[in-house]
């Protein structure tokens, strides 16, 4: 019954509704400490902004990085930051699952009539993570202004598709990471390697990395679909692996597959939940 498409849609709708409700509660909780929130949000913004300043400084010594100009690198940086920032804002606090499993407070989420995934996704929602997204968006705006490329309807469509697919892929990594914490409650480090480590990598042109690494990021963990492949198409460049052209448009498909896998991992994790002794 629950697997009928209508049932799945209804549950998804309920999940989104519950997610919104809980996010609202956390935002209001945050506002109980307004000053500290403002400080954190600014700090978050400054930290991520300084990160790019580092790259910009590099370009005062060289004109290209792995054959890419500053605006081109900025496109990679801006798209990853935006995608990751969105996922991080929406789901980044999910890694509290481990703590909830360890201390047994997961129990209280299981007796609610809404999907546990939605409750966990909204858990400790941190509005201050807007800092990273805003940095990504600002940088992206600057890039689009400076970037010297020939835009076609196809590449114009590819840009938002890339941002959304990227966010969804990162989101799936967050969900899968959280699912894994049902088994190993301190697995968040592994997940961080994919998410934070992954974004750091995607901020640079693929040409600066060894081919083996790029291949791994493309096929094993499909992070290359977040921005490298579609961005290279926008920039009118060949990808270092010489993949067929349609792959540049495969990001939404990859994102869907990632969601399915992450969903399966989540269900398996939840099924294995065994609470704690008092």
């Amino acid at each position, binding site marked *: 019954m629950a697997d009928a498409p209508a049932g799945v849609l209804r549950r998804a709708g309920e999940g989104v509704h*519950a997610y919104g*409700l*809980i996010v609202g*509660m956390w935002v*209001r*909780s945050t506002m*109980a*400490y307004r000053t500290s929130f403002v400080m954190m949000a600014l700090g978050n913004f400054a930290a991520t902004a300084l990160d790019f300043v580092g790259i910009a400084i590099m370009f005062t010594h060289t004109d290209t990085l792995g054959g890419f100009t500053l605006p081109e690198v900025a496109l990679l940086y801006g798209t990853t930051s935006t995608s990751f920032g969105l996922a991080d804002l929406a789901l980044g606090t999910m890694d509290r699952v481990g703590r909830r499993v360890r201390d*047994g*407070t997961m*129990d*209280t989420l*299981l*007796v*609610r*009539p*809404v*999907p546990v995934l939605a409750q966990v996704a909204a858990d400790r929602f941190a509005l201050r993570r807007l800092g990273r997204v805003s940095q990504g968006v600002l940088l992206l705006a600057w890039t689009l202004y400076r970037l010297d490329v020939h835009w076609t309807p196809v590449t114009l469509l590819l840009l938002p598709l890339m941002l959304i697919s990227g966010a969804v892929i990162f989101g799936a990594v967050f969900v899968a990471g959280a699912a894994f914490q049902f088994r190993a409650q301190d697995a968040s480090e592994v997940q961080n390697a994919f998410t934070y480590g992954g974004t750091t990598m995607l901020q640079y042109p693929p040409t600066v990395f060894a081919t083996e690494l790029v291949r791994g990021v493309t096929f094993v963990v499909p992070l290359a679909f977040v921005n490298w492949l579609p961005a290279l198409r926008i920039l009118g460049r060949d990808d270092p692996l010489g993949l067929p052209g349609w792959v540049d448009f495969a990001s939404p498909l990859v994102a869907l597959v990632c969601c399915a896998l992450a969903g399966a991992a989540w269900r398996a994790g939840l*099924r294995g*939940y*065994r*609470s704690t*002794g*008092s």
Partner: protein
Amino acid sequence: MADGEGQGTVDGFIELDGVEKVFDVRRKAGFLRRERHRVRAVDGISFRVPRGEMVGYIGPNGAGKSTTIKMLTGILVPSGGRLRVAGIDPARDRTRLARRIGVVFGQRTTLWWDLPLRDSYGLVRRMYRIPDARYRANLERCVELLDLGDLLDVPVRQLSLGQRMRGDIAAALLHDPEVLYLDEPTIGLDVVSKAKVREFLRDVNAERGTTVLLTTHDLTDIEQLCKRVMVIDHGRLVYDGGLDGLHAVGGSERVLVIDLERELPPITDVPGARPVKVEGPRQWLAFAATQSAAPIVAAVAARHPLVDLSVREPDIEEVIAKMYADRKAL
């Protein structure tokens, strides 16, 4: 199995047939070596609770009370046996069942720490999609009976343990659950809060016909609330019946602690009570737990210069230990 199904449809709102829960526990046994062993937290329990009953589920620490509640709510999947609540298999249909049950975990609040109490209720209203009129009526009633009026606009972090527990109980009842599970709802509460909680539960059960299952190791809770009590020990049901029967089976005794004006020889002239300890002006008199304390207090007060007194309930651990001793003696 076949006759189990047959019985189940008769009157069981909550039905358990040979329910088991086994935990595989891995323990560190030296460097890198891990020892696996199995804990039979619930070891073949069967009982039925009809709709509208209020039942006490008691037993010493580690007996399997919380594990039973977690299976009844669908948090844990039983390792064996059959379990139904309102005809639903909780582990399979957890989310659907959730609308119809209320759960209070004594040590885990579901209230929002940094927000006024009222906001937590608002979330419940929207999460359970409680109709407006229903919600307002239920909240009003909880606020009145649990004395929450002055607390609604106070951030939860500023509430005392007892106030928070009252707040949690109200949160669990706003959506009109058919059954309410409470796991140690009075643990650590002050006397006033305990009394309010008990009175409220009695009212909810009587007025709304909510089925209530509460675990506790405070026998006073049971005494004041439940006609029926189930005792669980080492995962097995060792007693299921009235409280009087439990005291009779356990041969348990309550103790009257009295403070006299001055040191006196042990009091032996009160029928039904015997002195068990004397310490200066304070004396301890034991009497059968099945007996009312009032005539004994009256008799003591009539004959001796009484300053103060209190009654000590029999300890649940003691009652169960005695039950075992008696069973062996049989």
